[in-house]
């Protein structure tokens, strides 16, 4: 009996909590991806690089002596501006062609290649690790947890709820949902569809940047960090249902727990194939994912 309790306290408990912290960050990223897909029908292959850019911006600002908490506010704003510009300068150019699915995918894929090499050029191949802004650890239910991870879970959870409220409880969110469902009708009611597109893309990019900042003190910051993370985010989006917020939250929590717990039993080399296998399985069995499109819940 005590053995079971001890393994819960010292082995499974911390693993579940760590999985939760990562899960919150993955969900923030997946939310950006899924909202962009739900509204614009664009698979943003450079989403991982936007996440990395957020982390690098934080590293740079902290290096300049800027307070980490200020970074947490500044970086998403900067990322939103970058996202807005990206949508107007790139996505818009091919958006009205018949092949916009593949052309936007190729464009953002090209952007990802450029960004990754640009990170290497600007910061070198070695990882940075910003110091955690909250030190110490607390005991919850007998499980010792770093305070920063507790903060991450709380703050990330609050942001996820806020995103849901914005999309489902405000007129701004109604504009986004309307444009996702029926672009022409939304426009004929006066919704500035083009600006809603750019704004939504910017919002998704800002979320990716925000999760980059939040995760920087836990993981290191390095040029391929986006690529390493993006597969998980895509899996969450596909399993949750492309465009679904609720689905992304559920899938994000479940998948990161699977990854976290399984790492107790299998080598980390196999954690990616495991996640990928789940994605393939869902595409075969239930291609629509757990929940429907944007606006469905």
């Amino acid at each position, binding site marked *: 009996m005590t053995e079971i309790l001890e393994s819960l306290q010292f082995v499974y408990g911390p693993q579940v909590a760590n999985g939760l912290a990562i899960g919150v960050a993955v969900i923030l990223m997946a939310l950006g991806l899924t909202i962009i897909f739900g509204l614009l029908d664009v*698979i943003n*292959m450079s989403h991982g690089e936007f996440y990395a850019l957020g982390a690098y911006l934080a590293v740079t600002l902290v290096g300049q002596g800027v307070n980490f908490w200020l970074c947490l506010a500044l970086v998403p704003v900067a990322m939103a501006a970058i996202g807005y510009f990206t949508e107007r300068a*790139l996505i818009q*150019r*091919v958006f009205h*062609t*018949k*092949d916009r*699915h*593949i*052309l936007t*995918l*190729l*464009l953002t*894929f*090209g*952007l990802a*290649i*450029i960004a*990754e*090499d*640009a990170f*290497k*050029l600007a910061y070198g191949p070695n990882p940075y690790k910003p110091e955690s802004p909250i030190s110490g650890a607390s005991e919850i239910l007998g499980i010792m947890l770093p305070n920063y991870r507790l903060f991450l879970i709380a703050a990330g959870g609050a942001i996820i709820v806020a995103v849901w409220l914005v999309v489902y409880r405000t007129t701004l969110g109604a504009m986004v949902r309307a444009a996702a469902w029926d672009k022409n009708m939304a426009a004929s009611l006066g919704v500035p569809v083009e600006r809603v597109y750019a704004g939504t893309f910017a919002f998704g990019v800002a979320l990716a940047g925000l999760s980059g900042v939040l995760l920087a003190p836990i993981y290191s910051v390095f040029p391929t960090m986006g*690529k390493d993370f993006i*597969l998980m985010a*895509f*899996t969450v989006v*596909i399993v949750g249902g492309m465009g679904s917020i609720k689905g992304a939250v559920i899938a994000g929590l479940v998948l990161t727990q699977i990854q976290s717990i399984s790492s107790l039993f299998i080598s*980390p*080399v*196999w954690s*990616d*194939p495991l996640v*990928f296998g789940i*994605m*393939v399985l869902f*595409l*075969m069995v239930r*291609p629509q994912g757990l929940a429907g499109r944007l606006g469905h819940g």
Partner: protein
Amino acid sequence: MADTPATRVAVRTAVAANERADALGDGVLAGAFVALALVFAAVAAASGDTFFFRLATEALILAGVAMAVDLLLGYTGLLSLGHALFFGFGAYVSALVLKHWSPSFWAAIGVTFAAAALLGVVAGFIAIRARGVYFALITFGLAQVVFKAVYNTRELGGSDGIIGIPQIRVEFGLFSVQASSPLGFFLVTLVFVMLLYAALAWLMRTPFGRLLVAIRANESARALPGILALARQAGGLRDRGRGRRALRQPVPHAARPGVAGAAGLPDIGQRRDHGHPRRRRHLVGALYGAVILTGLKSVIGTWTEHHLIIIGALFMLSVIFLPKGFAGYVLPRLRRRFAPGAGKPGEGA
């Protein structure tokens, strides 16, 4: 236009004329490619060069990959973001064969051929269930997963790759070519790549090739098990073409999708005219594109190692401004010169 027997004959004649003009245009470009390659080989051999030979050989190998991507994207409209997986796989298999089993070139290419075909069937089995963007995501994920797995496997050399692969001699019965000879290896690669080109060009004119194009024209075609099986075969075929890539010294970075993505530069967007089964695509564009790209990479490489920034930018610019690709730009102009009688592509049907 009324659907009378006369108009139907007229349409058919126009289509046939178009196809002949297309084949002619492709043939002219492919012939010019071989001629240029031979002129280059003569000049380079006379001046005792090795650097440009290596570069040109690399370009030819890249052309093979590009043709494979083009076969999928250009003809069936399926975008594979994980094609470098097969490239890297071929290289690893041949390296292992040469190192541990037999130093024979033909053994290496035979085993790689078979193994790549098998992998193609497996990968096709997984990926072909998804369409459009999902296909792209699955192939992307597949390549990522395999890359990471290989990268973390010490038995395969991890991040250093496999080292100590013997230099080989390619036996042709009457004569043999040393793989370390720049001229000889260049010519061997040229022969293989042009044979691959001829085989694919022929394949695309067969009923099977037309079926491939029909896959893109009709999304519901995937419901037909027969087409599905054929599509899987195509997956295998494309990877068989990949076997020769083993000739190259294997490096783990070959397995990075970024490289193949950049390789797709010249022929992306040839799939623009979807829904038009009679419209032909231009495999020959992949040959020229690969050469242009390798040349660019080398030039950029002389002043920065971060060539992906520039290649990536070119890639994006061509998606935006040249969506029909290099061949899509050149060929209609060539056709107007060589076969003025034929109509514009795609309008004959």
